[in-house]
């Protein structure tokens, strides 16, 4: 078959114009790039948030990227902003205030104060979650980040095992320990139980860099109201802190608790979910995870058969640690306005705030959304904790270094390599050599 020269030229011209039309149509859409910590994609239902936002903004194409969690990715992300003047993503979601403090100190984030109006006015937020985002900046620029969803640090326990051990009242309600001595006694009694011929772990602590420093902070806040000294340093000499360390050591030494978390960040939650740990000490969402995993009607989430895992607070009246997964927009973002719209319409939407809470126990940061949550003992417990005094995590430039150092010193103590006094002395010495600059010292 022969084609005339004209038909060939015509064919190419048509193809080219169709291609260019398609290209220009694609170009008409603005791409909003959102980067979240990898584990958050499912737990915060990012695909659904993406879909809903695109439906409301037909001219926007949302691309969700992931970055590593646990503070690992952040130095590289901040460096990209400062060294290239560009940002891979327009909006970042994930990262605790303690992990993103360097970006706040270096004034790399756009103030988000503009959206704190009407239903997002500061008084509509839970103070425990909002206040750690506050920076003493210039007027109108106090919030370089805002909390997406949050958690508190407390103890979670398996009610079935409490019943088995007889730690219940006449109405079969769990009798909760209120002192470290009691928690210790409970743990050692529970450690004598067996499930499927296997010994129960009485108490599994957070001994690794996921939560270990936060559990120390929570213990000190509960007893003394703050973990900071008057000059803003970490109060390693705190009596409550020493008591907390000694309590953990006693549990480990007596074999009433596990030590899986020494090397496996997920050791405690996995043991709780498997019904093998009686008490753990971590963030509140572990109670939802544990309940859902142990629920008799497997596959139905949230678990309809009750709160198998419940919670109790640290000894003391000082409150606890509240922390949240922050969202923030780098100053060098290409589409800052769209990023702000996504934060307001997607991340802070009632759907996002309540969906994750019911599925995974990540709590809403706005009071209004609590009314949409199921009424159960765990939601009530967290609400009560959040209504009381809370404190955020430390926010030093060397915050991550201090977190890692705490884990190392804690484990050296728990494994018997050093005494409590040596541990405290080492932590103080490490703090003396650390950069303790905090956000707000350099005003935006």
């Amino acid at each position, binding site marked *: 078959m022969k084609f005339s020269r004209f038909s060939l030229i015509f064919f190419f011209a048509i193809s080219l114009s169709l291609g260019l039309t398609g290209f220009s149509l694609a170009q008409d859409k603005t791409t909003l790039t959102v980067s979240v910590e990898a584990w958050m994609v499912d737990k915060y239902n990012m695909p659904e948030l993406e879909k809903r936002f695109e439906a409301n903004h037909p001219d926007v194409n949302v691309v969700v990227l992931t970055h590593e969690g646990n503070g690992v990715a952040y130095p590289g992300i901040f460096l990209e902003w400062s060294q290239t003047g560009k940002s891979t993503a327009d909006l970042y979601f994930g990262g605790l205030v303690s992990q993103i403090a360097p970006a706040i100190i270096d004034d790399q984030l756009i103030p988000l104060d503009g959206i704190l109006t009407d239903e997002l006015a500061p008084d509509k937020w839970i103070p425990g979650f909002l206040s750690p985002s506050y920076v003493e900046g210039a007027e109108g620029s106090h919030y370089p980040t805002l909390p997406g969803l949050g958690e508190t640090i407390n103890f979670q326990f398996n009610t079935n095992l409490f019943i088995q051990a007889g730690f219940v009242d006449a109405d079969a309600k769990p009798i909760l320990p209120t002192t470290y001595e009691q928690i210790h006694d409970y743990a050692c009694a529970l450690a004598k139980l067996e499930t499927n011929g296997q010994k129960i772990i009485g108490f599994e602590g957070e001994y690794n*860099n996921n939560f270990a420093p936060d559990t120390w902070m929570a213990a000190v806040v509960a007893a003394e109201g703050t973990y900071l000294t008057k000059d803003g340093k970490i109060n390693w000499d705190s009596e409550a802190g020493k008591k907390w360390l000694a309590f953990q050591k006693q549990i480990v030494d007596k074999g009433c608790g596990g030590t*899986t978390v020494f090397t496996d960040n997920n050791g405690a939650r996995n043991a709780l979910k498997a019904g093998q740990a009686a008490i753990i000490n971590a963030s509140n969402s572990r109670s939802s995870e544990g309940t859902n995993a142990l629920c008799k009607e497997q596959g139905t989430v949230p678990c309809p058969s009750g709160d198998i895992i419940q919670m109790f607070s640290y000894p003391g009246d000082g409150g606890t640690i509240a922390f949240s997964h922050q969202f923030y927009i780098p100053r060098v973002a290409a589409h800052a306005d769209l990023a702000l719209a996504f934060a307001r319409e997607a991340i802070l939407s009632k759907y996002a705030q309540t969906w994750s809470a019911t599925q995974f126990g990540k709590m809403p940061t706005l009071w209004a959304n609590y009314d949409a949550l199921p009424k159960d003992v765990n939601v009530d417990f967290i609400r009560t904790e959040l209504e009381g005094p809370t404190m955020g995590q430390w926010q030093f430039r060397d915050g991550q270094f201090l977190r890692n150092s705490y884990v190392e010193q804690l484990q*050296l103590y728990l494994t018997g390599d050093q005494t409590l006094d040596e541990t405290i002395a080492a932590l103080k010495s490490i703090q003396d050599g650390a950069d303790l600059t905090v956000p707000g010292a350099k005003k935006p």
Partner: protein
Amino acid sequence: MSETLVVSDPENKVYKVPTKQRWYLEQRQSRFALMLILPSALMILLFIGYPVVYSFLLTFSQFNAHQVTWFSEGLSNYQKVLNDRAFGNAVRFTLLYTAVYVPLSVAFALFVGVLLQQVKIGTAFFRSLLFLPSVIPITMGLLMFQWVLDPNNGIFNHLIRDALGRPDLAKNWLGSLDTVFGTLVAITLWGFGPWILMLAGLLAIPKDFYEAARVDGATHLQEFRFITLPQLRNTLTVVITLQMIKALKIFVPIYILTTGNPAGKTQSLYFLVSKKINEGEQWYAYASTVGWVFTFIVIIITLLTTFFLRNRRDRV
């Protein structure tokens, strides 16, 4: 200077080329060769040379997100690193791991190689089977071991407790100071080391040697001692050097299995560099210094090993 240039074309024709023309041709060839090399050379300079020089200069400097203050630190970063207990622990762990892992992995590889050399039936099956660990992504393999060794739910402790009836022997293999080192070494030996290289070396040994030895009445042990080992010397040199570098650079198993713990006792030098980088840009200069001290250690060990192995080979 010869006036004949031999061109090895398919017909092996010999062309006589005048000296000047030949010089011109050689120049053209050199230029052409340089042009071919240039893209790769530029890439190497850009992506390897530049970061290497940059990170070395960083060891004498101070780094933050907005600026580098070059040469402001002198040798203080080195001083800081050498006085750091974490660095001392990392050096100790890395060297001890290398000292234990290298001989074991080489011995395993040699053992498996010799066995496969002897096997006459199902050769492909056994080779494929033993090759499986190399095909499985390392992270998957390590996560599998994490599950197997889980102190509460792992099958290993389950077997010890229930099948052997010895609950006292069930341990927190990766979380206890007593067992973590041995467990790490054992896990990283999974795959039996570089047995493929060993097998290749073994198959290259002429069979006549063994036949002649058998005629002379040599035992299997004597064959191994006086034929196999001497003939494998070059392969062994390569394998030992490669395994040594691999062991010194251990990172992924630690990252996945122990996070450098318990009590920071399984932090390798590579892991320490990564950990410091993750602590913020203010630690980049420190991390570079650890990296360079580590590089010096690797170079010294590799040179010593090569020198030692070559000396032994020359003596033989």
